[in-house]
């Protein structure tokens, strides 16, 4: 009887169980709209260059707008705040201003000609800080600090790695269509700090950054003989990478920076070779009846994608880094050119020629083709270091060959024009700066 009594008690207890699963509420919601983010002027300490807080906030706002994910509020038209409020802002005020997110910070001196820029990211709706970071830079490099802050914001709010503190090299073109002057130019990804790296006395194409961002390889065609050149960006010194009188072009670094893969035309045939960056003897990777060119390494360095007309039309092929296992991966109709493997290793960007020239992406093993642009002539894609954006050059129909740089989000959206002081082509995005 005692056992039955115990059972009854237990059953009664079970009925009033406190360990019953808690109430669950399912909520589904979201939008693909841009995020309103307030970027007010950062307070600047008295010992730092005055006005810098406003300029830094302006660069951050411009960077965030360029991602296509944000609509910045400020720094023009909205007030600033005291330094203490950088870490503890009045969320209600920003909420009423219509901001969903908020970037705050401050600028102060950090020794002779150096500054510290503090950067805070806040979720206004949740009323909490999401992240903060400080950057100590030379006062003259204040834009770098602003780009770093923008990358921190972008990365924290998008989940992607940053790409705003980067540079772009491209071919700057001036002059009439039949007599263009082409120079290699370099600039920050927002168009600032623009300068030329070559004089324009020889035609140049396809400048490409090294993985560390301190060197370039490119093709120059002085004296009607195209050659692959290697340049140190800081000093501007150059030298020919491949000895002899052979025709070399379409160079690109290996992921470890120790080799350069390129095309060489010899005896009427064009094949792909590699050569150590430090110099040496080129090693042949392909030997087909067609022209093999535009090679690009996978990020792990194990494979190479290239274009070839060995089958009768320009198509994309991949092979192992030693040249073995060559196979075609493009089957979508039309011609394919200028492939580039993305930094994540899962996608390949290319130019598709089927009537117009368009920029597309496909899976690294082929298939899954997606066309990103739809204009008259878009070509020469180059990946951003985070693999989310592709930069390319566009020639508008009826524009007499005027070419401009654009970047497009591979997830969709309209391409945005990159600011260049003159026509530009053949862009290459640098790795994220350290």
């Amino acid at each position, binding site marked *: 009887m005692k056992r039955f009594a115990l059972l009854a008690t237990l059953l009664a207890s079970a009925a009033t169980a406190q360990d019953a699963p808690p109430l669950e*509420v399912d909520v589904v919601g979201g939008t693909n709209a841009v995020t309103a983010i307030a970027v007010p002027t950062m307070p600047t300490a008295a010992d730092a260059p005055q006005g810098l807080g406003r300029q830094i906030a302006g660069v951050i706002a411009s960077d965030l707008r360029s991602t296509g994910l944000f609509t910045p509020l400020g720094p023009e038209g909205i007030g600033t705040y005291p330094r203490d409020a950088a870490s503890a802002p009045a969320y209600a005020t920003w909420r009423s201003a219509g901001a969903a997110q908020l970037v705050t910070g401050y600028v102060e001196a950090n020794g002779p000609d150096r500054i510290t820029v503090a950067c805070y990211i806040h979720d206004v709706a949740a009323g909490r800080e999401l992240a903060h970071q400080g950057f100590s830079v030379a006062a003259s490099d204040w834009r770098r600090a602003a780009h770093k802050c923008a990358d921190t914001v972008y990365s924290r709010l998008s989940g992607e790695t940053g790409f705003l503190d980067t540079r772009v090299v491209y071919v700057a073109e001036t002059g009439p269509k039949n007599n263009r002057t082409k120079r290699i130019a370099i600039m920050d990804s927002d168009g600032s700090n623009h300068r030329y790296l070559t004089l324009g006395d020889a035609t140049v194409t396809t400048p490409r950054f090294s993985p560390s961002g301190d060197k370039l390889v490119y093709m120059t065609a002085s004296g009607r003989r195209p050659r692959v050149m290697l340049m140190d960006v800081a000093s501007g010194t150059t030298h020919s990478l491949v000895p002899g009188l052979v025709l070399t072009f379409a160079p690109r670094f290996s992921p470890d920076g120790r080799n350069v893969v390129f095309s060489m035309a010899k005896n009427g045939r064009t094949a792909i070779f590699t050569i150590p960056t430090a110099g040496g003897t080129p090693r042949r990777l392909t030997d087909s009846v067609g022209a093999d060119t535009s090679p690009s390494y996978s990020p792990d360095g194990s494979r190479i994608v290239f274009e070839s007309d060995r089958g009768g039309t320009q198509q994309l092929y991949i092979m192992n880094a030693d040249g073995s296992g060559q196979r075609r991966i493009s089957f979508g109709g039309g011609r394919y050119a200028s492939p580039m493997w993305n930094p994540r290793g899962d996608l390949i960007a290319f130019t598709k020629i089927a009537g117009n020239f368009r920029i597309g992406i496909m899976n690294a093993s082929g298939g899954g083709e997606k066309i990103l642009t739809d204009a008259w002539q878009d070509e020469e894609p180059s990946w951003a270091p985070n693999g989310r954006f592709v930069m390319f050059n566009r020639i508008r129909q009826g524009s007499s060959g005027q070419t401009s740089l654009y970047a497009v989000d591979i*997830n969709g959206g309209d391409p945005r024009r990159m600011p260049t002081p003159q026509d530009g082509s053949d862009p290459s995005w640098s790795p994220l700066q350290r």
Partner: protein
Amino acid sequence: MRVDRAELAGTGAAIAFHAALIAALSLSLAHVVHPPETPPMEVEMVDEVGLQPSAPSAVAAPPPPAQAPQEAQIPPQPEPAAAPLVQPAPQPKVAPANSLAAQAAQLRPATPRPVPAKPASSRPAPAQLRASRIGADFLKGIADAAPSSTPARAAAPTISASAMAGIQQAIRRQVQPCADRQVNPGPGASRIKVKLHLVLDRSGRLVSAPVVVGTNGVDDDNSRYEERVKDLAVSIISGCSPLTGLPPELYKPASGQGWGNFILNYNLP
């Protein structure tokens, strides 16, 4: 010493009398009438225990005709004057076949007669009673436990399915505008589902910061968005609290499924 005839006769008679007395007593003792054993108490195990007291109620209506004795062909007799307060009801046929009532029914026509109604009970028929609905392993682990002398818990408010659905709808209605404002960080992020544990006070305000207790749907393609989707989930409830208009009696019912402590499952569309 000489024993006379009279003494012998008397002694013999005494012996015979005692022998007869002993025999009579022995026979009497062997015939002990045992009182009938009381039938064993039936204990019924039920798996539905309501928090509401369920007092027995009398059956006022007669049972369905199918339950009437088949032999009851004779018209019912007039009710006796001393009828009980409760309407009489014929004995249901579900009585055990070996019961006295069943035996009596077999011996004579079952004439409906006033019988005080038994308290209605939800317990099943005896045949069902013997099939215990408690698993054989129910007592595992408690064999050595001492019987509790703690009185049974007092009846507490319950939360019905409809009330629970009402709370869910009320919460969803209030947080949906905040959910709709969250920006999708990228493709594949909508596969991530965040489970958020929330503790509110009676005014609907967060007692503590929301805690992410789990995510699922994260894979190689969308893992970079996981932290961001967690942020979005936290932002939803932070931005739309306090929750208002929720029934105070269901803040923390005994069932543990009140709105004071609940799970928010969030994902992007």
